[in-house]
């Protein structure tokens, strides 16, 4: 066994493992470089170097243990936080996804219009005798044929051409048709504006057809503006990720542009967002607090009840853990079915017809009830463990001194329990503050008066509200959602830190 950790076998094993992991990371780095994800590639390269340095030398023994965790922390916790923070300062939404350079190219590509007749031609791609890329165009309706390059158009006599059954020219003097393989190997011929008439040109629309267009928008790099060639309107970078004219009409697509604190400003100044945000925040805090209190209270009650000798105690304990053992996803969906107005078990048993998810109060009650169901086994388990950790001598001494059962609980058991469980209660609060699954699967954030223009539902918590803004409709606003996420992060961190300080848990650990 010791051979695995010492000597040549250990060294060889280590080198093979390091080589394998390095290979995977280098492959990912290469892939990231190919996708121009330079930050990811750099991180992976640093990880490879750090890993080899740490494990092939003896200079940093503690880091042999810390390095994997540090790398994962950096990759999966710190990097997403930084990315979210950066994105919260961007105009990053539907219509503003790509880079500015890409957006300029797209606006140029879209800045064309067909001629009034929507003229198209059957074309054959090839080269002129001089080797210039050209198209052989056929207007079969008017029996007109011509060769066009980027600099000239040569009209042809039909009698000189090879025509197919549809009267499409497939060959002409001084024209060399490209083979299929040549067409497929290079797309240079698609980038050319082939001469047609006046300002109109022919664009290759497929391997067999070309269409007549004229350019309507022109980009001027020196001034970073677009000019409408038909009416002279100038479109400038509006600083928000779009080119816009004086009437604030924008050109699409836009790009991901830094707008600094505008997403945060929206939360404060935009009534449409601020109103729901405050309401959702209040409910989020209430939901998290109520869930922790009810789950802890009920779990502790059961733990106290089963902490005493009882016939069948082991069986009861097993049953109480069952909700915890079942995947929460399944439990939530089952509860959602049970709350159904028409077919749900709850209305059937109560002989009522309550629309649980249509009424705000009932929906909130249902959410708390289901979160209680999902949360109490956890608190029952940890309370049981904590109760057993309290020295029985303390309780016996108190009893001998004449303390009542209630006094023993309130003066000894509960304070000791809270000291042990405070970090877990705070962690549970933080978890429920962001308990997206429960809300999304049970109520979908509703009920919501869509017809009344509500954008947040009665049971929406901040994270589900954020999701709705980011992904809930056809129009996604990832920048705004990132700003809300950053606020959630600071809220949860702040509340948790405050709780930890108040409970003096950190001092205890220190």
């Amino acid at each position, binding site marked *: 066994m010791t051979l695995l950790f010492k000597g040549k076998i250990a060294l060889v094993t280590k*080198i*093979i493992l*390091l*080589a*394998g992991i*390095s*290979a*995977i990371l*280098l*492959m990912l780095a*290469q*892939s990231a470089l*190919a*996708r121009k994800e330079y930050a990811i590639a750099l991180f992976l390269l640093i990880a490879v170097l750090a890993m*080899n340095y740490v494990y*092939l030398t*003896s200079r940093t023994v503690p880091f042999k243990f810390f390095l994997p965790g540090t790398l994962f922390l950096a990759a999966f916790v710190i990097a997403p936080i930084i990315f979210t923070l950066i994105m919260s300062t961007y105009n990053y939404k*539907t*219509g*503003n*996804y*790509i880079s500015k350079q*890409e957006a300029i190219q797209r606006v140029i*590509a*879209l800045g064309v219009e*067909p001629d009034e007749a*929507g003229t*198209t031609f*059957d074309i054959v791609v090839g080269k002129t005798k001089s080797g210039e890329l050209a198209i052989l165009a056929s207007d079969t309706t008017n029996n007109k044929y011509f060769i066009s390059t980027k600099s000239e158009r040569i009209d042809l006599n039909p009698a000189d051409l090879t025509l197919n059954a549809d009267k499409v020219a497939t060959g002409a003097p001084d024209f060399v048709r490209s083979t*299929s*393989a*040549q*067409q*497929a*190997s*290079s*797309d240079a011929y*698609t980038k050319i504006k082939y001469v047609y008439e006046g300002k109109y040109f022919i664009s*290759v*629309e*497929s*391997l*067999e*057809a070309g*269409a007549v267009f004229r350019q309507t928008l022109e980009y001027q790099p020196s001034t970073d503006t677009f000019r409408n060639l038909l009416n002279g309107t100038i479109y400038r970078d509006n600083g928000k990720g779009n080119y816009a004219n004086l009437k604030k009409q924008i050109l*699409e*697509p836009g790009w991901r542009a830094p707008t600094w604190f505008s997403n945060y400003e929206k939360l404060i100044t935009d009534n449409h967002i601020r109103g729901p945000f405050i309401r959702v925040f209040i409910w989020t805090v209430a939901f998290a607090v109520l869930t922790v209190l009810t789950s802890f209270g009920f779990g502790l009650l059961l733990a106290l009840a089963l902490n005493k000798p009882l016939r069948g105690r082991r069986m009861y304990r097993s049953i109480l853990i069952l909700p915890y053992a079942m995947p929460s996803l399944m439990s939530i969906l089952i509860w959602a079915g049970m709350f159904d107005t*028409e077919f749900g078990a709850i209305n059937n048993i109560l002989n009522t017809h309550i*629309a649980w998810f*249509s009424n705000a109060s009932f929906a909130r009650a249902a959410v708390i009830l289901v979160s209680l169901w999902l949360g109490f086994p956890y608190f029952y388990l940890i309370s049981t463990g904590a109760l057993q950790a309290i020295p029985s001598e303390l309780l016996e001494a108190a009893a001998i001194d004449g303390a009542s059962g209630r006094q023993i609980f309130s003066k000894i058991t509960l304070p000791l329990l809270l000291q042990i469980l405070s970090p877990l209660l705070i962690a549970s609060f933080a978890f429920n503050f962001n308990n997206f699954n429960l809300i999304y699967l049970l109520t979908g954030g509703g009920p*919501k*008066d*869509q*017809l*009344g*223009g509500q954008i947040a539902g009665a049971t929406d918590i901040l994270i589900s509200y954020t999701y709705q803004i980011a992904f809930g*409709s*056809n*129009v*996604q606003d990832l920048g705004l959602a990132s700003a809300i996420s950053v606020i959630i992060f600071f809220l949860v961190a702040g509340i948790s830190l405050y709780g930890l300080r108040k409970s003096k848990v950190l001092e205890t650990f220190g």
Partner: protein
Amino acid sequence: MKNRFLKGIAVTAVLAFSATGLAITPARAASEIVVWADETRGPNLASVIKAKGDWVPGYTIKIVTYSSFDALKDAFDKATGTSGPDIVVGGNDWVPTAAKSGKLAPVTLTASQKARFNPTQFFDLSYKGKLYGVPVDINNVAMIYNTKLVSSAPNSFGDMVNYYKANKAAKGLKAGLCIAGGGMSWGAHSVFSALGADAYLMSKNGAVNTVQSFNPSIFGANVKKYLLTNGKSNGFFPATDTGCKDNFLAGTVPFAVIGNWEWKDYVAKGFEMNLMPVPGVVDGTYGRMFGSVSGALLTTFADKHGVAAGAKSLLVNFFGSTEGQVKYQLLEGRPPAEKGAQKDASVSAGQKGFGSAASLAGIPQIGAFLNNNKGGANYWDSAPAYWTAVLIDGKDATIEARKLAKIWKTNVATGKGDL
């Protein structure tokens, strides 16, 4: 120590680079056209394209299949220049947002290529006057009636309600009419329309009235007359689609709106394709149902990959051709969008049934109006909200109809710029 470290680094580096060399993904061929599709379309497309290798001479075509339509949408939303497809077979409602975000590239069809399709089908795949793909198949719904319960097709909405009321107890009916396919917004438009509320008003020549909306008083009155008793749901039309298909197949619902992608399930259970539009409140009129198309959409990535011309040829030669659609729909089983393919002898009774229902009472699905939420909510969210408000929450049908009309009117008025 230093010596050992350097040796170790050298060995690790050699091994790592050797392994990397083996693992490097081969570069994509310059002449490869990549098509993304969902879990049903993908294998069928691959099969048809493989059977005839020269849809676009000189190019190879690779079909990438995703596990579901949602997974495909998710992947396309995240697609970038290097990873994205050249063509994606997706929903028409993807077009406005994907085009707005610069992910789709316009295509220009010749007159003869355009003539292969019904002009209204181009509505679905257009954004701001530019077309972004070719129609592949038609998505629509139709109402099926169970001939074991009702002997003949109903003439009006009232006929169905009267049948339900008369037979509810005796036949253990769970509802009269329900939505089995397309959900309470898309699928239920035919019911909205039958009762007098179209998402937008269209003239016979296809022009949209961007000024007026439906009449909420008439619609509200119809809802009260046919769907409510003393202000509460009479049970004829449930506010959700939960259990509708199962109930219809079990014979406890006589009328159901079903989707054309699932007609085989009904045939397998022994139902004949007794399909028709939802009848209106006046004899001989029908509720108009959305007829949308799925499209083969050209992406801007095709240009980056250097295959834009080849990809456009694939759109025209395969996805938008009679031969391509006939061969593909033989496997896929949806109504083809291309006119020649629609007339082909191989088109099944189910496909034809949906086609004829659509021709009787179809309305194009115009994303510029339906996806717009300038009115406070888009069509997809506001439509089911109406059913919930009236049929579950018991709110006044006419007051809620006025809110709905206001929302839809604003969405149409402000969405016309995106047409």
